[in-house]
């Protein structure tokens, strides 16, 4: 594999890997640094790679790196709410309500068990189906469903409690 071919892989997967690391670590600087390390490591292994399994390989490497960095991480998620596809006028009140809701969501995401959080965010933010998530994380589709279910239940209980 040459650099150009590798760049295609990088372009396809960088965002997802970076996001995945952020979901796990809650620290964007660390997530971005490790995402780069993941690709350097993958490049160094390129002769042994089976292209069909590149996705799960990238995620496995990312997961391993994340585990090594885990203890030192102070998690604080700072997601922003962004409606790119909706430039239409909305009342300031509505915007404020949404912002408030997003803050609660952020806060509650911090408390969500990690397994559930990762699956939930991969589905919501990266738009991955349960099957795609199961491929990437090397777990069954049933397990993904279970975590997703747990996450939603947890979020709903906590968020509505506070409102």
């Amino acid at each position, binding site marked *: 594999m040459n650099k150009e071919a590798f*760049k295609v892989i990088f372009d396809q997967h*960088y965002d997802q890997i970076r996001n995945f690391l*952020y979901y796990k670590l809650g620290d964007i600087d660390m997530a*971005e640094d490790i995402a780069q390390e993941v690709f350097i490591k993958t490049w160094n292994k390129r002769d042994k790679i089976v292209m069909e399994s590149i996705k799960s390989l990238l995620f496995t490497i990312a997961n391993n790196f994340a585990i090594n960095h885990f203890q030192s991480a102070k998690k604080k998620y700072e997601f922003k*709410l*962004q409606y790119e596809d909706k430039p239409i*006028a909305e009342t300031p009140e509505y915007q404020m309500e949404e912002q408030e809701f997003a803050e609660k969501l952020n806060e509650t995401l911090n408390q969500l068990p990690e397994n559930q959080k990762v699956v939930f965010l991969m589905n919501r*933010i990266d738009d991955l189906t349960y099957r795609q998530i199961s491929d990437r994380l090397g777990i069954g589709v049933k397990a993904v469903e279970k975590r997703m279910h747990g996450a*939603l239940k947890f979020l709903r209980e906590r*968020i509505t409690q506070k409102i």
Partner: protein
Amino acid sequence: MNKHTFLKDWMEGKVSPEELQELKTDPDYKETIVELEHIMESSSHLVPPKKKSKAQAWSEIADQLEETDSSTGESRIIQLTPFIRVAVAAAVVLLVAMYFLLPSDTTYSTSAGEQLSYKLPDGTEVMLNAETSVSFDESNWEERRMVALEGEAYFDVVKGAQFVVETPKGRVEVIGTSFNTYNRGEMLKVSCFEGKVRVINTRAKEIVLTKGQSSQIEGDNVGEPVVFNEEKTATWRSGEFYYENAPFSEVVAELERQYNVEITLEAMTNRSYTGYFNNKDLDEALKLVLLPMSYEYEQKGPRIFAK
């Protein structure tokens, strides 16, 4: 279906839209459904923070990826016979001539009310504010990274050879950086967010800006670097516009560009404007801009009259 399995069924797509519609009228389910939909909808709009662009992340690691396979072929030299030499020379002339005849500029542009982001051939990201155009010569890009700009754009330049932005009022030269260039009417304003840029006006006067500095070119004058507030500069990228002691005409012009409207002022005030508006809600924006300047306004479709 019962209440306990509802969440699971819903997630697995076992609840049809019709069924869902019907359940929404059932007070036992209504609240739950609304809340779940809200969580699903809101969370799909969450955006993780981002410190560096994908292009930047790639350029940082690209050098570390060593191409170990050493199968590069030797270059071969072919001796040409005189006839072939002539033929080749002619072909080259023809090609070069054709090349100059063909329009080779690629242009990206935005109209009023529009903001778009593009990738240049080297991965450099350029984000265009409303009514802005950039053009460049794609075929010659590797030799010369140069774009012509009219309007306002934010560049996140991939490291490499010199990168030049040409505007009618002067040029900006960069080596690996991100910066905002605003050129409207007589003014050119450059704000450097990262790295270093050199700004040169049409009279060859120049100035170097480092991270966090900006400069304005007006007429022949190149302004001394001033420190700008990164939180409030080039925020058009997120649809927000902050002003501090700005000429009011500049603010009104931006408002027109963002909403594709025409604003007629009975008399232009000479007071300067300090404030904020965003491009999400025209009515709110008009209030935030016009009322503090003691204008009353009336809106008829895309036309706004203020006095």
